[in-house]
């Protein structure tokens, strides 16, 4: 699975996710990626793209859950993504990337690794695979 989230100079957020699914999946199986709210979601607060065990992500409604925690519980982006990944999605089930309309970035996962990269206008950059793989800056 691949995905991208962005917030532009006008503070507008967008999210996109694409995948081939599972190796040896049943013909006709649909995962979380095309399900708005599960694998992809964006509103005026944030944008989210998820990856991992699709069936679990669907049950958790991960992407929308992040947005809802921000909108209705007033959580900051990082706290919202931590809550969803560590408290709602079972351990080892996946991760997500997210940006807020104010330019924050979160890349949160509870698997061993996640191929990921991020950058912000103020010069922060990070590329990593594992949790301790931060090459250019501290993790957001």
């Amino acid at each position: 699975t691949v995905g991208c989230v962005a917030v532009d100079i006008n503070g507008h957020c967008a999210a996109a996710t694409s995948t081939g699914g599972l190796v040896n999946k049943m013909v006709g199986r649909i995962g979380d990626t095309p399900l708005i709210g599960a694998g992809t979601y964006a509103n005026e607060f944030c944008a989210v793209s998820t990856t991992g065990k699709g069936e679990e992500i669907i049950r958790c409604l991960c992407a929308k859950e992040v947005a809802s925690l921000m909108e209705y519980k007033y959580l900051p982006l990082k706290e919202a993504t931590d809550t969803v990944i560590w408290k709602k999605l079972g351990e080892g089930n996946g991760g997500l990337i997210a940006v807020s309309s104010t330019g924050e970035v979160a890349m949160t996962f509870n698997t061993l690794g996640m191929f990921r990269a991020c950058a912000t206008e103020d010069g922060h950059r990070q590329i990593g695979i594992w949790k301790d793989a931060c090459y250019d800056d501290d993790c957001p």
Partner: protein
Amino acid sequence: MGWALALHGGAGRISKSSISPAAREASETVLQEFLDAGCAALSEGKSALDVVELVVRLLENCPLFNAGVGAVLTQRGTVEMEASIMDGATRKSGAVSGVSTVVNPISLARLVMEKTPHVYLAFEGAEAFAKDQGVETRDESYFITPGNKERLAKALEAGLVLLDHSVSTDGPEHGGSREVLQADGHSGRDYPYANGHAANGHPIAAGAEFE
């Protein structure tokens, strides 16, 4: 406040020992390259919607990742790709599933969002819409990599549904591990169905690493 961008190429049971230095370098190189492309577009003032589509198209066109070319295979050896996109400013969204010839499913998802009254098209309907819209299509063989054929063969042999979280560098040819979709609590070792299928013919999802 300013622009910001993040991208991913999948998450899973990716141990440091499962990826060769060369494969790691290759994946980091393309992540860097695609990050730079997205940052440049945002710096030029492009919309978030345009940028996420741009970056995901790059990822789809890269065989290292499980999307577009390099997409993993169904139990019949076919390709069924899916994608979605959402614009936070308008909350408009578009999605496709079960496409097997569309080079960039993410762009087809955006066309669903912008050119139809619907949110989600699937299978024959999505393929027909792709033809109507004149998007680039290729024969299914374009998407199938040798690594993914091998991965499917091993999965069929072992009777496992595998979570292909990421890149071909994590595959068996690189000594990598595969994550298994856990559903029934059985491990691969005590798995009771030798042919990998339950009585109803469905593939069994077992709780063990493929290898």
